[in-house]
């Protein structure tokens, strides 16, 4: 794994996510461990999406710069609406809302920062934040739209 050296400390402080793991829902065929995904999340994602995945305040409305803030990843957000393929693409290539007033990728691209396995791993961690029903819905959305490069 790359980037381990830069590991920040925040993730050590809290690790509540395991408790949200629902064992009655299919997460992914991927073998990566959610705990590793959680570490990646705390290191690379929590600064914007919140240490508990709670998102930024007023995330549904554009901020003063005319940009949509980082949304939550839990049940109140809409991360669970996206297939594995789509989630992978957004984390890998980044994303910005087309109505943003700026041109920059507000959701940064992580393809040069994380390995494909790490991207899958952090997405699998996000799945632990959803309700079992949302996990099921997302698993169905991912039929025919799974992670690319499953083998890596």
């Amino acid at each position: 794994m790359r980037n381990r050296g830069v590991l920040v400390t925040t993730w050590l402080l809290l690790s509540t996510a395991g408790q949200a793991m629902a064992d009655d829902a299919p997460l992914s065929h991927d073998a990566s461990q959610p705990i590793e995904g959680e570490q990646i999340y705390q290191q690379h994602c929590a600064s914007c999406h919140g240490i508990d995945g709670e998102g930024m305040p007023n995330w549904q409305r554009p901020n003063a710069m005319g940009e949509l803030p980082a949304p939550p990843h839990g049940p109140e957000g809409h991360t669970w609406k996206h297939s594995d393929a789509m989630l992978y693409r957004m984390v890998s290539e980044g994303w910005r809302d087309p109505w943003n007033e700026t041109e920059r990728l507000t959701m940064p691209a992580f393809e040069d920062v994380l390995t494909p396995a790490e991207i899958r791993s952090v997405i699998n961690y996000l799945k632990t934040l959803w309700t079992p029903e949302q996990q099921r819905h997302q698993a169905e959305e991912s039929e025919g739209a799974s992670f690319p490069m499953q083998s890596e």
Partner: protein
Amino acid sequence: MKKMMSRFWHTLSITSGAIIGLGIASVAAAAEDVLPALEYDLTGARLLKVNSSQLFESTNGGDSWQAIPLPEAVRTGQLVVAPAAAEQTLYIAGPSIGVQRSDDNGDSWYRVDEGLPSRNVIAFSAHRHQVETLYAKIADDGIYQSDDAGESWRKKDSGPVQPVRRLVHSDMEGSMQTGWLYAVSDDAVRLSMDCFCGWRPTGELDADTVYDVAYEFDEPERVYVATDRGLWVSDNGGKAWLRIEGDAPELVAITLAPEGTLYGLDRVGELVRSNDQGRNWRAIPDA
């Protein structure tokens, strides 16, 4: 002719075939008027109109209309018609009828709503390009999507909390998935990418009732909205609306033909046409 109009449905839709919607609306709105609906069918190069629970087509820009038979189940109430990308194929939807399809331009109809939890379909749209993808809003429930022309349906979203009278799929760029859906409610037009990852309000409209929305086939960022206070236009998919200063009567249904010709229906189903982006309108007499 029964003058039963309801404020629920009209038409428009955009696959290259045609969708028709019958709308009865939710219980709260059931007592209100049933509105006519209008849709341009690209595949058939024709206008489709629903008025007083009857369906008509016109291939000469509204100069004359021919009736298309509807399923027997249709009596009164709101209807939406949607063209499908195949020739002769039409969908009709509405609270009294659910969703039905015809492959022979109305000679026969069959149900394609067995997979829906209810027939109380208050809004309906076909995907702009994907022939088999349909969207149906069930009253007090949510938006269901079919990817196999109605054989099976899956709930995708609960939809905006406001009652929706009109759903319109668009292929405007910028979506995470394949396009966008406009949802028209009394108070506003809302927009979501077709991944259903969040409804956003479109720009402010100074109006009490919003009736219908339509966009240009070749330039989907250009969107028109019909309200009780006139017509509005947007050049950015609805992010901001500009009021059109023109002589349009109060239009409750609008649709666009290629080359930007705008058609509208007033409350009693009379057709008007504008060739200058909604400023000047001409009545087209009912032949």
